[in-house]
């Protein structure tokens, strides 16, 4: 909440005192540090505001990761947007949206869940419009309607559940719900609402258009942080609120997962623009996470969901940020523009390569071990076909990730001069921090697995 307050007041403060923009970044850094401090000291198992929000290992871990990712995002975005635009407003929106994501992963109640999700989404409606061109307006409109539709679906599902039980809190719902077609209907609506947020098939259409249309720094927030938070929210709904319907949903999840990752990867292979490749790869990654959801009858599925969300929040945000930096500095938008960037920009390109390899699932980055957990869950739940399909998908997805690497390193440069020659240091440091965290998460698996085991015990495995 503190983060949200800092974020909300940042533009106001700056307008009032005409503070130079650098100080804005410094102030928001303090906001992040304070929020990190509060997340770290938060007690476990507490409920806040009469069981609106809960804090446990999951919320603490993912909270820390989301905060760090968002902080790094803020630092990078600050350096790579045109200074004459509303940088402070943008950063303020990022912080409010991050606060929404933090609340979403703590939500313990359908009311707070919906509110947190709106808090996370509302600032992004503005941010999508940030680059003020025709494409971003189209993206903004698309995003707004899809977002509204998603919330509508979720609210409809929630209202059915409320009509049946008169309860909003997850704990009360678990006690009162029974296997019933109406509950299944409510579950399907809620699932569809989340489907929009995580760009699952068949609700994925808006994703690539929006990620491509808006400025890539914002897309990094949308694909990386918001989606990760939505995964955790969905996990809480599935495991805490409507576990009665879970066995019925397993197959639906499996089907959606299979189609989502296949569609995402196939379409990504066909793209020429790097932002669209990353966008479709984010659709494919939603599919991988849904594989873990499909395996919800075994505890390792929680590890899979949690690990993939954690790794995904970092690698996708970072990949989009690297793209954003290269776009800002070199104007590189399409695959052809990427030719030889490895020679022109060795460190940034190397970092981008690390994130791409992590997305592709090459060890020792976190993307690899998270995939291991996801597919272990699928095999454990008896869905070896799904695991095989997912792994094949993952193998073919390497083609387009490595294609970007090929363009960067194996081809001769086409672009001669950078369009904006800013200082690279402040872009590289946050990205290097993210790469470091990715590698650490890929080898030191204890925090995430421990948190997931605690959570699994809590929801009754």
């Amino acid at each position, binding site marked *: 909440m503190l983060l949200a307050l800092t974020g909300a007041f940042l533009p106001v403060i700056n307008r009032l005192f005409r503070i130079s923009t650098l100080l804005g970044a410094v102030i928001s850094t303090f906001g992040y540090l304070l929020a990190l401090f509060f997340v770290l000291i938060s007690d476990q198992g507490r409920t806040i505001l009469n069981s609106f929000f809960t804090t446990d290992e999951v919320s603490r871990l993912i909270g820390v990761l989301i905060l760090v990712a968002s902080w790094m995002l803020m630092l990078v975005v600050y350096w790579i947007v045109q200074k004459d635009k509303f940088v402070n407003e943008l950063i303020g929106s990022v912080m409010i949206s991050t606060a929404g994501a933090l609340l979403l992963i703590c939500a313990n109640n359908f009311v707070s869940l919906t509110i947190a999700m709106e808090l996370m989404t509302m600032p992004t409606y503005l941010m999508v419009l940030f680059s003020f061109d025709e494409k971003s307006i189209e993206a903004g409109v698309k995003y707004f309607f899809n977002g509204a539709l998603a919330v509508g679906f979720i609210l409809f599902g929630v209202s059915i559940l409320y009509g049946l039980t008169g309860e909003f809190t997850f704990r009360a719902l678990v006690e009162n719900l029974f296997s019933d077609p109406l509950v299944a209907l409510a579950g399907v609506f809620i699932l569809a609402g989340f489907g929009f947020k995580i760009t699952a098939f068949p609700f994925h259409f808006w994703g690539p258009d929006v990620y491509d249309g808006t400025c890539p720094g914002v897309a990094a927030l949308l694909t990386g942080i918001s989606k990760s938070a939505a995964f955790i929210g969905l996990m809480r709904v599935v495991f805490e609120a409507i576990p009665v319907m879970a066995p019925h949903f397993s197959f639906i999840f499996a089907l959606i997962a299979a189609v989502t990752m296949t569609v995402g990867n196939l379409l990504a292979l066909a793209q020429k623009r790097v932002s669209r490749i990353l966008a479709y790869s984010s659709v494919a990654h939603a599919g991988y996470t849904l594989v873990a959801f499909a395996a919800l009858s075994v505890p390792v599925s929680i590890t899979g969901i949690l690990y993939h969300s954690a790794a995904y929040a970092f690698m996708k945000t970072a990949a989009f940020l690297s793209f954003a930096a290269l776009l800002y500095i070199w104007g590189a938008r399409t695959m052809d523009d990427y030719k030889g960037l490895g020679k022109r920009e060795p460190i940034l390109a190397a970092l981008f390569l690390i994130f791409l390899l992590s997305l592709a699932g090459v060890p020792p980055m976190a993307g690899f071990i998270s995939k291991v957990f996801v597919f272990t869950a699928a095999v454990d739940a008896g869905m070896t076909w799904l695991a095989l399909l997912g792994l094949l998908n993952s193998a073919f997805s390497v083609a387009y990730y490595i294609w970007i690497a*090929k363009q960067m390193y*194996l081809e001769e440069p086409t672009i001669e001069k950078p369009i904006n020659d800013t200082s690279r240091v402040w872009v590289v440091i946050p990205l290097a921090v993210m790469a470091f965290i990715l590698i650490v998460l890929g080898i030191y698996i*204890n925090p995430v697995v421990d948190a997931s085991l605690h959570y699994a015990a809590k929801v009754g495995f």
Partner: protein
Amino acid sequence: MVLLSMILIPVIVAPFAWFLERVNRDIPKYLSLAVGIFLSICTAYLIAKYPGNGFAFKEFYTIYPPFDFNLHLAVDGISLLLLGVTAFLAVTVTLSSWHVERPGAYFFLILVFLGPMVGVFSSFNLLWFFIFWEFTLVPMFFHIGIWGAENRIYAAMKFFIYTHLASVFLLLGIIVLYLNAHTFEFEKLVGINLDPGIAKLIWILMFIGFAVKMPVVPFHTWLPDAHVQAPSPISVFLAGLLLKMGAYGLLRWEIFVFPQVSKFFAPLMATLAVLTIFYAGFRALAEDHIKRMVAYSSINHMGFVLLALASLTAAGISAAVYEMLGHALVISLLFMVAGYIHHKTHTWYISELGGLMKRIPLLMTMFVIGVLAAVGLPGTAGFVGEFTVMLAAFDYWGWIMIIVPLASALSAGFFMWMLQRAVFGPLKESLKELKLTELPLIENIPLAMYIAAFIFVGLIPSVVFNLYNPVVNTFAQLFK
């Protein structure tokens, strides 16, 4: 700490090689050479201290015990031999690459490759084995793609995607194995009792992963492209280490872990092996491209390794491991010389070569020695390898293996024919204007090292056999 430092020191030194290029172009290669010598000293120390049987030098780094995700390093005789090959090739490849362009990035990638390679041969935790296994692809991809020949980008992409696809099957096999055995540790996996159906599924999934790396014939198509396009020193790494990873993985994680299932699939392995030997032999015979011919002969030799493994006897496994060593030394020499021939004559094609012996006798003499070793001349590693493989195959499969000496004759045929056309005979008109000179000393040293090594282990094979025979005999009890 020795094994861990052998993995970490190359990786830690690697960035220095990259950044210090700007200070002085010579620093990266000396760093790489230093690391190669370091690896050699460490391996020599390990071999000297090795007790003779069983696993030694265990290092256990706890990471997450409930999931069995712990870095467990150890070596036995077989690993030690392959570590020796790794260290030896690290030195020779560095010397061969002495005048490479963009040395910083090149030696950075070599060092990043060497660390995980040591990990592959010394990891006794299956998941870590896979992590090291998979990571070796990345430096190789850039080596082929940046320093390769004309068609390098296609070859690099094909190499990466093809072998990564194979690794996916291996990973699925590992996951199924873990869910049934609840462990990744080699020592706990040996002799584990699984449901036969599940065990067969795991075996097949993992075999696909290893067979592509080896490569076995239906899965071999990435190799000729990768080898031909890669720069020669990198071809040495591909042939000498990457292919060995496949054979080693098959031996360590399938044959030792699932002896009975392997017995069930032994006819399949033997059939694939014979198919590989003959298919690669005939392709080599038909090949005009000299490096591609060497690549096919490399596949042909790996067929012998698989054939020996398929016999599932102590003699067969001993022969397979020996053949792995012999292949690494002999084929490396051939790849290097094929690369130099192209460098000097600007052609890859045997039909455009001829009479090279007249102009560059020293290089060509070494080439002839290498070819004779590959054909199996007594006194070289090639002879001991092929001979023991055939003995083991006869012993196990009986008279039907009469076809294998025929394959050996085939390999003699294509090599001798190539020598006659390219090396001996009158000098081709087109080559007369070229300035054909001998190699500088530094590039001759690695070639001489290969020759010395394969003649040494060919004359005194007991040096090698004694290192790992006790281990093989222990495991051979499993097949009874």
